[in-house]
Each structure stands twice: as structure tokens, then as C-alpha cells.
């Protein structure tokens, strides 16, 4: 990683925030959490379309897994109801487990794919699950970049 042009730590110190792109939610299937896979034009020169689409599709799959209504969720619901939901004091819900997986996945994607290209994905949970925020960084040394304070943090919950 040290030999990469940008790694995550370097990104915040040596690069400045140029722009942010927000990937909106896709409500075509109802209120389930799903993000649009439409490739934003601002990222055209920064990353390949297929990589971006892969990331968003994987995230959508994770969220679908978390919100799946089936045997497991019924069992969890009934068990919790019987114990007056006190069981959640000692047990993690399925959704929380998947959120941790998502957080790790985003961290990994940032390290491997996005940071080397000067991009940074923010976990949607930090934006109210409304958008996937992708920050676009420019090298401080390069010309023509608008400087701004890099305030985004992608630390997971």
C-alpha cells in the first residue's frame, strides 16, 4: 500500500477536497434500501464504470440481505417479542451484523480501489442511509484544483 500513489492516510494530508458526488436512493422496489447504479459523470475520468457499478451492486446486495423478510427475521422478531425485546441487550440484530460487514467492505474498497484513484466513499449510514457520498480529491500540488477543507471521515460506526 505504501507504494500506492495515494493511500487512505495520505489522501487526507496531501490531497484537498475538490468535489462530492451523491449517489441517490433507488425507490423502484419500494422502501428497501437500494442505491442507483447510474454512473455519475463527475467520476468519468477517475474510475472505471464497471468497478463503480460492482461496488454499488454489492452494497445493494448487502442491504437486501439485511432487510430480507424470511424465516430468520420471523424467528428473531418472535424471540425478541417474547422476551419484551430485552434480548437485544445481549444479542446483536441481524441488521447490525450486516452493517458491520458493509462497513468493512467499504473500508476495503476505499483502500484497494478508491483511494488510489483519489476518491473516498462515505458509509451511507453516516448520511442517514440516503446517499452514498463519494468525495473527489485533487492533489494539493496539482493546478486548477479548488481547495477546501477535507472534512469527510469514512470511519465506520
Amino acid at each position, binding site marked *: 500500500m505504501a507504494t500506492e500513489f495515494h493511500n487512505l492516510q495520505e489522501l487526507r494530508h496531501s490531497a484537498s477536497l475538490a468535489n*462530492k*458526488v*451523491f449517489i441517490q*436512493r433507488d*425507490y*423502484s*422496489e*419500494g*422502501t428497501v434500501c437500494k442505491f442507483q447504479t447510474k454512473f455519475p459523470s463527475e467520476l468519468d475520468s477517475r474510475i472505471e464504470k464497471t468497478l463503480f457499478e460492482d461496488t454499488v451492486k454489492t452494497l445493494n446486495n448487502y442491504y437486501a440481505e*439485511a*432487510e*430480507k*423478510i424470511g424465516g430468520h*427475521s*420471523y424467528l*428473531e*422478531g*418472535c424471540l*425478541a*417479542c417474547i422476551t*419484551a*425485546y*430485552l434480548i*437485544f441487550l445481549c444479542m446483536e*440484530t*441481524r*441488521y*447490525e451484523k450486516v*452493517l458491520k460487514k458493509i462497513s468493512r467492505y467499504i473500508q476495503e474498497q476505499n483502500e484497494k480501489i478508491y483511494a488510489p484513484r483519489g476518491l473516498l466513499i462515505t458509509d451511507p*449510514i*453516516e*448520511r*442517514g*442511509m*440516503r*446517499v452514498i*457520498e463519494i468525495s473527489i480529491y485533487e492533489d494539493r500540488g496539482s493546478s486548477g484544483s479548488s481547495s477546501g477543507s477535507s*472534512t469527510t*471521515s469514512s470511519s465506520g*460506526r
Partner: protein
Amino acid sequence: MSAVMLPRKVTRKWEKLPGKNTFCCDGRVMMARQKGVFYLTLFLIIGTCALFFAFECPYLAVHLSAAIPVFAVVLFLFVMAMLLRTSFSDPGVLPRALPEEANFIEMEIEAANGNIQAGQRPPPRIRNVQINNQIVKLKYCYTCKIFRPPRASHCSICDNCVDRFDHHCPWVGNCVGKRNYRYFYLFTLSLSLLTIYIFTFDIVHVALRSVDSGFLNCDSGHCLVSLTPYCTVIEVLVCFFTLWSVVGLTGFHTYLISLNQTTNEDIKGSWSGKNRVQNPYSHKNIMKNCCEVLCGPTYPSVLDRRGVMAEDSLSSTPSPPTSDVVATKSNPVTPNTKTTAPLIPNEHTPDEAKPSIAAAAQKTTKEEKVSSPRDSGPKVSPAPIVVKESAH
């Protein structure tokens, strides 16, 4: 005297959250600002149950069965757990858009609107999405600066957008939304059962006593016994009035759940009427709808209350004008039974809740729960649920 090193006070995010909620226990508990009616609910439930356990249960346990008080205790604990869970949890508040996101959306809107003649009113900010082959309109919230997700609505009492907004319930002192709807439903259901239970056993108790020893012949030597008739009367009165409204409310919410609708949608008539869109969220199957609402996944809170604020963002965060988030663990905000719920003036958002609950909070003699206008059955002037303007 040696200098004592005070630990640096950490500022948690709940202290800077906009909106009119009160937070307790360092951000773990989240409620609406006006909590007077909630304290009344607590008083009625705990008071009635205390009278029942003190005066009826000893007699019933001896003369009928010891299981009666045991079951009553279990039911009472369940009711309290559900009430507290509904009142203290985040209903599904959507955090407001940060400045960059708000600007991004503004730019998109301007690009979509194109050129507007000077002096002409800009078109209303609406986004159309297709859900299950129905067109649903997403409205823009001027307070939160977001396009509200489907089924979300802005509660002007709490000044937050809430996901799957049902209604703002003053009896539980919180909004009812996606995250706490099932607790609210289980609360009304279990409270109905508890009320029926206490009512039934009060009647049984009176009947048994009158068979045993003549109801009104209370020996003055037995102080406890002589008090019993009065307590029974109080309990019966409370239960009688509670029964009509709570059971009605439970029935109404059962109906809503079977159709996968919210109170908000029902009152606004979103899915009813010939030319209106049919409910795109319903699975057209009662069992599936019930399972989704009651046994669906437990959604996490997206409002980070207990996160620690970074030092540099403290100075840049605009402090919210009037949101007094109170930070006390041992000294909660005094119950505010004052009336006016300030309305946030928002143009283009005709669905702001009127402060009608302010008027209802004044009527302290009410004992029944808030019920929707749809409820049938004799009630003592029901207070409207504060959701939105009443469409009917």
C-alpha cells in the same frame, strides 16, 4: 489543596442535533419536548395496577388462584417495557442534509427546472418515482433540505423528518415511525389486554365479595377491606374509559397493519379513492403485511446520538436556534403541559401538523388514549392524533 484534574468534557452529537427533541442519559433516551401527557399515561397505568395489586389481588389469589396476580404482573411488566421502548427510542428520524448534500440537491433541482422567467414562481419541488408500477411523489422538505423518502413525513412538533411516519403520539411522548411502530402496537395491544383483565377481575371480585359477605357490609375494624370498594370503583372507572379508546385504537392499527398503511396515509387518504394510486407497499396478503410490519428486521438508528463530536467541527457547526437539548441524567425536564407547539412555517409543505395537540393537552381530564377519527364507539370527545392537517 492539590489541584484536581477534571476530565475534559466530551461533546456528544446529540447535544448539537437540530430538532425539538429532548435527550436523556447522555443521548441514550430520545423523546419529544412536551412530556406532560406521557407522565399522565405512566401515572394512570402504574396507579391503576398498584391499586389492583394492593386491594384485589390478595383476595383473588386466596379465593380463586395464585396465577391471577402472577399473570397480571407479567402483563404489567410487558406493557411498561413496550411503553418505555416506544417512548425512549428513535422513531426513525432522518438526519438533515449536510451543506454539501443540500447544495448538490439544489443544483439538481435548478438544472431540472431550467430557465424560469423573472417574477414567475418556481415549480413545486417534487420528484416522481415509480414503485411497483405506481407513481409516487416525493416531496422536498425545506427544513431538512432533502427529498423525503416514500412514506416519510415531517413532524412539526419534533421538527424532524421521520421515516414511515405514522403519527405523533403525545400519550407516549414521541413520534411513532418505522423503528418503534411495532412497540407502539404491542403497547396498545397489551394495554388492551391488561385493561380487560383488570376490569374482568374487578367485576369478579365484586361478585365474589357480594356472594361471600355482602358487598357493602364492610367491617370498620378492617381498614384495608373497607377501602376496597372505593379502589375497585376507581379501577373500574379508569378501565372502562380506557377500554373504549385503547381497544378501538388497537383495532384500528390492526386494520392498518393488515393493509400495510400508516395513520398518516389513512388520514390523508393517500391510497383511497378511485383516481388515486393504490397502495404500492401492500403485498395484497394480510398475513404477509402483518409479518412485514411486526416481524420485519429491526432497523438501526441512523441518527448518531452518542458519537463524539470532532473538535474542529464544533466551531463550524451552526448551533441550532432554539433546540434546547437537555443533558441531565438525574433531572429530566420538568413536565411541560403548556399548550403551544410552535409551528415551523414552511411554504409548499401543506402537510405540516397543526398544533392541535396543544389544545388536547389542555384537557387533562381525558383518560382515554388518542384515537383516530375513524374509530367508532362511544367516546368522550376524542382528541385528534396530531399527524397532519385533517384531510376530511
